[in-house]
């Protein structure tokens, strides 16, 4: 089963993304704690892309695909044609440094890396695809 959602790169669309993920996975027996965690990770990835690669331009489009290849595996793909924002190339910032520098950003990368099992970047049909994989630990 797979699901797709296409949206403009406006931060006001983040709520719609969260609702889309929850609705799509409603019948897949995802434990609530893990459901909340993957929604958070996707929110972080999409907002990062909207801000850094698309400057929140609502005319720029991105697509979110959800695939459930096995009952315990969730695969999310964010497809866009902006510049690649590869979180694997960013070191996970230390909390102490973020506090000292009074930075409001940087936490999202920590969250995504803590929640997701794998973050990969591929190119498909001339577009960037960020693929995030989550293996569920609970039985649901």
């Amino acid at each position: 089963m797979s699901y797709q959602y296409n949206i403009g790169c406006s931060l006001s669309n983040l709520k719609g993304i969260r609702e889309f993920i929850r609705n799509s996975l409603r019948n897949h027996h995802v434990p609530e704690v893990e459901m909340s965690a993957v929604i958070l990770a996707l929110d972080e990835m999409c907002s990062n892309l909207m801000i850094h690669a698309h400057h929140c331009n609502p005319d720029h489009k991105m697509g979110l695909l959800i695939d459930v290849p096995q009952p315990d595996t969730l695969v999310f793909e964010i497809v866009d044609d902006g510049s690649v924002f590869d979180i694997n190339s960013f070191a996970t910032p230390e909390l102490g440094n973020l506090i000292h520098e009074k930075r409001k950003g940087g936490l999202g990368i920590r969250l995504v890396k803590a929640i997701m099992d794998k973050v990969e970047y591929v190119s498909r049909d001339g577009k960037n695809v960020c693929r995030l994989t989550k293996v569920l630990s609970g039985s649901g």
Partner: protein
Amino acid sequence: MVHIKRIQEEGADIIAIIGEIDASSSIELDLTIAKSVGEGFHKILVDCTALEYISSAGLGVFMSYIEEFKDKQIHMVLFGLKEKVANTFSILGLADLLQIQSTKAEARKLIDELSV
């Protein structure tokens, strides 16, 4: 998406967050805390009982005030976090950096003790 209320009670400023805080709404939380600080409050209680969701943008707002609060001897205590919200704080290890209590009464007691 988010509604923020302020209530002053016995010398403390209570900031109640109703709804969801993400990258599009975190600015409202930031402005509210800045206003509270600007008005000279040294005791800030954050009522999270109606907070349904918070992303790193909102957590970053709380973190960005940690040093300023230390310098100005301002105390902030959060209370009433739902489990799904508390989980986000603990994934990041923020539960150890911020003062968090279960109930308003416990938060009130802690902030009074911290402010002595």
